[in-house]
């Protein structure tokens, strides 16, 4: 005997004590699928038969069942369930998770139950218990379907029990095996002529009957049409549309989900009391002119429509009014209602129409959701969802989306067939911005990155980033990327320096990277520049704006003009570009830091040490032995002077944008593409086409790490650079993104100059006894952080380039900022 059950359901076993439920469950289901009340009594009371623990045991059982159903796992409840109240609780639980409840009744004869219980020493209750169970069961049997069980299977004899086979059935909405490609068509509303035109435009061959009426459309090979509902009402030829679509569906050329208008039409055709408005009158009149046979067919068709479909392995969902992820592939009255009508807020707008809850703004699901229901002037993607109702019946257009190509095809309405209550194009079209939700960024988060797998962000890291992001960062719509932190080279073992290029070259050579590029560090501030055709942003490595309003606009205008002159819009077929750069001079951003931090330390150090040298010299002149102290103090005075020179070198007067320079060194992304697969010479070459006073070049040198002569050349280059007061250089794999034997290699390693490091490690860091201690610095945490942030940054760029929803980009950007709160030695 086959027992059909939906492939996602809550199975409620019903039967007296001793009726064989546990044995049955063991035979047909996985041990983890079966939740037995005995087991839960044991969990909470150490005794499977302690009836006083039943209340607590069922609480826990229901909780676990709820978690399983939430996750979409079929669950079997093994308890007597002979009382109506117990079953009602389980039916409620199934409905709460939009899962169908199924009852399997084991109606074993009394003597069988008693015999089984007798063989079990722990079940010493009397025969009256079994009798009571069976009496309650018999009373329940005929009401089970009414109680809400979608299927009820009753096994009356032992042979029925033995022969039973569980057969899972696909839900009606489950078309995951249909992988398309599809042409998904928006609300038609009786506009037959436009539909025919659209189908032709999509490459379908219309099939007409003897009277010339379209009765089918044959798709291009491999394709299928899919309708998002509301085929009927308002328009001029509802029967014509139904005739065509019914033919397509019946011939396997199309799928269709139910719209609210089909639902209402069925009720009207059946003579149920419905208000005849919103264009229903037109449909009824048109159908009245059709033969009875056609009306019956139309009624059957509309009545048989499923409220939503899950297609293409779960990657595509169709529902007339859209569907949040928790309802995908689920079945309940609530799911159907949402799919047909959407989620109304209870408010009405100025036209008296219900205000619909903007579920798509909150949609974070993986599946693409295509829907209709709410007429809009133009289609657009909102968080991987698209409304295809472009109001053809109101004089708009009829729209289809080719899936998975994501290509939009539309035909214009032939006329305004129905006067809209609310204008199709609002007087002031105002869309809520892509709204980021708190839950997009807070708590523990794990982000899947293409280049370094899953990267975790801890809740406390997210908490500190939330404050920084909310209070100081620019609008997330323009914050598509934050650069990763960069690790310094392994600490040099030379006596007089902390960092030296030979260690950086050696590290890349050991990682199998033969060619590296050395790029000078400008001692400016890291800047990311987003240039759009009409807007943009220039922000720091923590997402803060560099300039105030008007100055930022002016700066962007200059960069934009250069991009235009260089022809980069056309070259990359894009309307935005993202540049990685340094902005000079240092004081343009760090003026406050210099004035409050670096300059006072210099002034205090030079003042104190000058005075000290002076009194020590006078003491020495009196013949008191202070030679060692004097020597130390003189040396420290010279360190202090060196410190002062070091930071002053990076300061230049600026006024507004006068004196401000941008040194771009990498083209990060443009619409549709990223560039980390292009080598650094390509980047510098492209960026060198940007001309204008605001730009400055980045000096560079390519070094073969396996060639001693070239390595010596690289060392010399660094010595000259830093000898002339330069900050240092960054060594990068020439090829850009590079994988070594142990995964990603560092995208860059900085090698800072000896004098520059005074402003990082303090004026006296070069004293031998200090260097000895500083050399013990640990780089592991910084290097690991650099790689994680690098992968998150790339992920953000790739998502932005693919035009993914804002929250998908923002979660990566936010994660970079969150990781930056890790306590890592800031001197590295």
């Amino acid at each position, binding site marked *: 005997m086959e027992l059909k059950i939906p492939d996602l359901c809550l199975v409620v076993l019903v039967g007296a004590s001793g009726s064989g439920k546990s044995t049955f469950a063991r035979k047909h289901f996985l041990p983890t699928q079966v939740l037995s009340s005995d087991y839960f009594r044991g969990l909470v009371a150490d005794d499977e038969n302690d009836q006083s623990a039943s209340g607590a045991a069922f609480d826990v059982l229901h909780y676990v069942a709820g978690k399983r159903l939430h996750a979409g796992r079929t669950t079997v409840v093994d308890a007597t369930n002979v009382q109506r109240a117990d079953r009602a609780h389980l039916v409620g639980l199934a409905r709460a998770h939009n899962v169908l409840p199924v009852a399997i009744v084991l109606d074993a004869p009394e003597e069988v139950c008693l015999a089984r219980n007798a063989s079990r020493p722990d079940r010493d209750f009397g025969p009256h218990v079994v009798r009571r169970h069976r009496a309650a069961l018999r009373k329940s049997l005929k009401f089970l379907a009414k109680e809400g069980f979608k299927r009820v299977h009753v096994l009356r004899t032992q042979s029925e029990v033995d022969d039973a086979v569980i057969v899972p059935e696909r839900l009606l909405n489950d078309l995951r095996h249909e992988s398309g490609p599809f042409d998904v068509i928006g609300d038609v509303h009786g506009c037959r002529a436009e539909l025919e035109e659209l189908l032709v435009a999509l490459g379908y061959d219309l099939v007409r009957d003897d009277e010339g009426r379209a009765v089918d459309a044959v798709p291009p090979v491999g394709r299928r049409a899919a309708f998002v509902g509301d085929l009927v009402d308002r328009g001029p030829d509802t029967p014509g549309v139904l005739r065509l679509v019914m033919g397509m569906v019946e011939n396997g050329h199309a799928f269709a989900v139910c719209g609210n208008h089909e639902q209402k039409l069925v009720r009207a055709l059946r003579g149920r009391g419905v208000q005849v408005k919103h264009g229903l009158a037109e449909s009824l009149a048109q159908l009245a002119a059709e033969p009875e046979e056609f009306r019956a067919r139309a009624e059957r068709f509309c009545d048989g429509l499923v409220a939503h479909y899950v297609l293409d392995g779960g990657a595509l969902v169709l529902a007339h009014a859209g569907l949040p992820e928790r309802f995908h592939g689920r079945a309940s009255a609530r799911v159907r209602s949402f799919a047909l009508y959407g989620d109304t807020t209870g408010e009405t707008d100025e036209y008296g129409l219900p205000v619909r809850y903007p579920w798509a703004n909150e949609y974070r699901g993986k599946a693409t959701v295509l829907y209709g229901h709410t007429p809009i002037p133009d289609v657009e993607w909102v968080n991987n969802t698209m409304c295809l109702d472009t109001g053809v019946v109101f004089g708009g257009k009829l729209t289809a989306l080719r899936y998975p190509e994501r290509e939009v095809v539309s035909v214009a309405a032939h006329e305004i067939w129905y006067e809209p209550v609310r204008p199709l194009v609002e007087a002031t079209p105002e869309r809520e911005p892509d709204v980021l939700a708190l839950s997009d960024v807070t708590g523990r988060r794990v982000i899947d990155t293409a280049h370094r797998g899953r990267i975790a962000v801890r809740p406390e890291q997210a908490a500190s980033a939330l404050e920084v992001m909310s209070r100081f960062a620019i*609008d997330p719509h323009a914050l598509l990327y934050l650069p990763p932190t960069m690790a310094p080279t392994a600490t040099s073992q030379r006596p007089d320096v902390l960092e030296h290029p030979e260690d950086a070259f050696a590290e890349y050579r050991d990682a199998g990277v033969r060619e590296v590029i050395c790029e000078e560090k400008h001692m400016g501030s890291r800047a990311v520049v987003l240039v759009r055709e009409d807007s943009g942003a220039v922000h720091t490595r923590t997402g803060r704006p560099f300039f105030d309003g008007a100055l930022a606009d002016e700066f962007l205008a200059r960069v934009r003009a250069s991009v235009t002159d260089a022809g980069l819009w056309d070259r990359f077929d894009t309307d935005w570009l993202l540049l990685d750069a340094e902005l000079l001079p240092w004081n343009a951003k760090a003026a406050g830091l210099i004035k409050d931090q670096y300059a006072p330390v210099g002034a*205090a150090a030079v003042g104190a040490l000058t005075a000290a040298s002076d009194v*020590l010299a*006078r003491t020495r002149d009196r013949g008191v032995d202070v030679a060692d102290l004097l020597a130390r103090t003189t040396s420290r005075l010279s360190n202090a002077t060196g410190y002062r020179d070091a930071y002053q070198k990076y300061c230049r007067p600026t006024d507004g944008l006068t004196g401000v320079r941008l040194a771009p060194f990498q083209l990060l992304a443009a619409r549709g593409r990223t560039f980390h697969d292009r080598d650094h010479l390509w980047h510098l070459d492209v960026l060198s086409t940007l001309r204008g006073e605001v730009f400055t070049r980045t000096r560079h040198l390519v070094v073969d790490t396996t060639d001693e002569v070239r390595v010596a050349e690289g060392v010399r280059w660094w010595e000259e650079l830093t000898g002339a007061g330069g900050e240092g250089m960054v060594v990068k794999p020439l090829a850009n993104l590079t994988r070594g034997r142990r995964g990603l290699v560092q995208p860059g390693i900085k090698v800072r100059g000896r004098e520059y490091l005074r402003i*990082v490690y*303090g004026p006296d860091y070069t004293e031998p006894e200090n260097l000895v201690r500083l050399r013990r610095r640990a780089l592991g945490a910084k290097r690991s952080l650099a790689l994680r942030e690098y992968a998150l940054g790339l992920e953000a760029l790739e998502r932005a380039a693919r035009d993914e929803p804002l929250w998908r980009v923002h979660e990566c950007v936010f994660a970079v900022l969150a990781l930056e709160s890790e306590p890592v*030695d800031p001197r590295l």
Partner: protein
Amino acid sequence: MLLTLTTTHRPATDLGHLLHKHPERAQSFSTSSGTAHVFYPRADEEECTVALLLEVDPVALVRGPGSTLTQYVNDRPYVANSLLTVALGSVFRTAMNGRSESREELAGTPIPLAVRIPVLPHRLVERLFTPLGWTADITPIALDEHGDSRYADVTLTGTLTLSDALKHLYVLLPVLDGSKHYYVAEDEVDKLLRAGEGWLGGHPDCELITTRYLMRRRPLVQSALSRLADVDEVEPEELDNALAEPRVSLAVQRREVVVAQLKEAGARRVLDLGCGGGALLRALLAEPGFTEIHGVDVSAQALHVAARKLGVDRMGDRQRARLTLRQSSLTYADPELAGYDAAVLMEVVEHLDPVRLPALEHSVFVVARPRTVLVTTPNVEYNELFETLPAGQFRHSDHRFEWTRAEFRTWADGVAQRRGYAVRHLPVGPADADRGAPTQLAVFTLGDDD
């Protein structure tokens, strides 16, 4: 860091006796703040100068993971501060206590003294030293092209006992610097009272000195002030005028108006959006009519402070059940904020860049959407009536803007119109005929047809 002390008392070399440090030798002492060197650049009959040079190990100064570079590169090794006074108190302890075996009488006698401190934060030097009989010669130190620094090369001259001079320095150098390199605990009060004996109680800036010496730790300051009053037989209130409750401040008035408006609106479940340290939450908790109070702030730190100040851990169950404290951000949609009667944004909007206001609008008026929303913000027109506020400056360094009444009205009316609210505007605080009240309040009410 360095300090020299010179006397022209004859014979000047008696200074060596008073300090118990031989003028012909250079000596080094290991102290808790570094190696202190004592030596004499000059020592003869007419004039004798002792130098105290403290060598601090800059690398050892900071241990453990720091959050910013300022912990690593700073002025601590160079500026006269608590590191120096700890060395001073250790190396010259006997002299500071006024004892001298060989020159007992001289130790109690005022002598001409000159103290030079080459790098000293100088803002309060005259104010603090002049009442004690010192004359200050101040030469500011330039900050390369950035003008003068907060430091000066300072020479103090006066005729005092060496003991008093050292005690003045011991107390006042950290006060001038405004920070300490160690945690200020209860015993710091004793140190202050010992070194301040005989002069601190009568100093016109006694309270300022006490407050800064004790790093503004209120309980310690109060304890020190009342003990000083005991010693000097004055009423503590006389000393403590700055600690008494000020007149009803604008902040209090703002809270009162907000609470009154919430009551008038009949709100019972209330959101405090941007609750900060919890001042409004406290006022709301005091009103039993508010059955649910939900405070959110973007700063986890502020929430910790609020929880501590409100004594959340010690609250009774009923009171505790009324209060929720949670981190959230008004630039992200937070569904947890939906379903309340009223929301208060007290002095919050001006902390957001104007480009982020639409996000705030969406969070508050679309997602949270309470029946009543109260928004307060400064009225910039009133600013020129604040005597201490320089012209053109905002009231708080983090304010991104301050609105005129017309500007606030434009924003508020726009929000109301877009979101289906009605809005009223109310002044808060003493109103000026031309410039209005210092704070402006907008009361948004959700339209009745909703």
